[in-house]
């Protein structure tokens, strides 16, 4: 505990300078879209209440004020953390089950022939139609939202890894088969490593889709999270609240995509052809 005041002290001394430098360099690199956003915000601000009714479209300052209020009273952090947990939990399940299922169907032809049509039908269904079932099984709350995030993320992981596993050169599989490798061994030493670029792609898309699923799940079947916050504001006829929740969501998805791009760029398997 003694280190806490010290680190807080350090953060106070150095963080503003670091943040300031990062901000300046970001503005320098990205000034055209930033400028456009500022111009549009200014037009919006001026037109609101004069050209159109502010009740329906609110105005940037009011939206910012709403986000600020939420940030100060803790609403923002409670829902933000719920959405993050839902997304990551759904994604983790989707990644593990998706990769395992893809390896299983990609390795055992008989199983593939039986199950493939079912998987394709399930994939072609809009996942939102499963929301009532999720509510029935898991009740209104985070578990239903996690279920929705899992379902939407799963198919992205599964189909990418599956096509990668099926594209593995039969010569490689024959080679290890004649060395005495069984199916599990072949899956782990040949199929999965050979499909690694597809796994990376599947995880990338899986995370984005799990995020979408989490929001949809929160809007339809939960009582917390940014999706819920948005629907709650809408049910109050509070356009300002809806737009404020939208802004938070937009920023969150931007950060998520950025982190993902960085993770993929560092991933060594992405270079294996």
């Amino acid at each position: 505990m003694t280190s806490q005041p010290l680190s807080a002290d350090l953060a106070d001394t150095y963080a503003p300078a670091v943040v300031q430098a990062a901000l300046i360099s970001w503005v320098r690199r990205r000034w055209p879209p930033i400028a456009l956003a500022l111009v549009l915000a200014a037009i919006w601000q001026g037109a609101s209440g004069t050209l159109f009714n502010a009740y329906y479209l609110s105005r940037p300052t009011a939206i910012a004020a709403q986000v600020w209020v939420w940030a100060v009273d803790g609403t923002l952090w409670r829902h933000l953390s719920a959405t993050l947990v839902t997304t990551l939990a759904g994604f983790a399940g989707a990644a593990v089950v998706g990769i395992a299922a893809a390896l299983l169907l990609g390795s055992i032809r008989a199983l593939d022939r039986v199950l493939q049509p079912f998987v394709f039908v399930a994939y072609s269904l809009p996942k939102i139609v499963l929301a009532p079932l999720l509510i029935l099984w898991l009740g209104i709350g985070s578990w239903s939202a996690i279920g929705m995030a899992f379902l939407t993320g799963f198919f992205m992981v599964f189909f990418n890894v599956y096509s990668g596993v099926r594209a593995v050169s039969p010569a490689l599989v024959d080679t290890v088969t004649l060395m005495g490798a069984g199916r599990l061994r072949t899956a782990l030493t040949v199929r999965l490593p050979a499909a690694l670029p597809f796994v990376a792609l599947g995880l990338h898309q899986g995370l984005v889709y799990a995020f979408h699923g989490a929001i949809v799940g929160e809007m339809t079947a939960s009582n917390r999270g940014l999706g819920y916050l948005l629907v709650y504001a809408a049910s109050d006829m509070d356009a300002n609240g809806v737009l404020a929740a939208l802004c938070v969501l937009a920023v969150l998805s931007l950060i998520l995509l950025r982190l993902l791009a960085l993770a993929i760029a560092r991933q060594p398997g992405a270079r294996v052809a």
Partner: protein
Amino acid sequence: MIPAVAIDSVRKSFAGAGGDLLALDDVSLDVAPGEFVSLIGPSGCGKSTLLNLVAGLARPDRGRVAFAGDAVSGPNTRVGYMTQDDALLPWRNVLDNVALALEIRRVPRPERIERAREMLRLVNLSGFERHLPSQLSGGMRKRVGLARTLIHRPGMLLLDEPFGALDAQTRTLIQREFKRLVAGLGLGVMLVTHDLREAAALSDRIVVFSARPARIVDDIAVPAGRSPADLEAIERLMWRHLGGDDV
């Protein structure tokens, strides 16, 4: 003496778009232990299918395939199998590729590393242990493939145009090295090839197949001395069998 390979009245067809495709029709062939047999014939005649039957990667519709007296009924892990495709794992370095068969057979790591190094010495690739396959030339990759195939001490080698993708000079060098290695180990070989000179230079015996469905047209014993005149006569004979004009 039990033959290394006994192929008895084998028939094999494949389901194709326009009905079944008969690849092998009533083929019988015995290979003695330590014998080097080349299989030649027109493209797509079913020679590769015959190798796959011996390897246990495919099963005959009729007839029997036995390896060292035992019927082949699944992947035949006692053979070493190499095709034109290197089939090296591109994400593993040379050493780990060579040690792969031992890893699958659960040989402890220190022993498999030592044996892999020894195999790499045998094919003159010491010093390349940490290279990835993509960093090697075609000829070097072929030698890695050979080391990997030989490391688990197979009873016989099944080779399907193993040197086909190499340039002429590299191919001649590898053939020579290969012949020396195989003779040294006393290994039997079944080699599918289109290269008549390769067949004549390497084999004890050459089996000539007809166009599909493959039947055996001729079975030529190569004289031990391998005089240039003998080899030339054999090449001319094969050439005639394959429908070429006399030269």
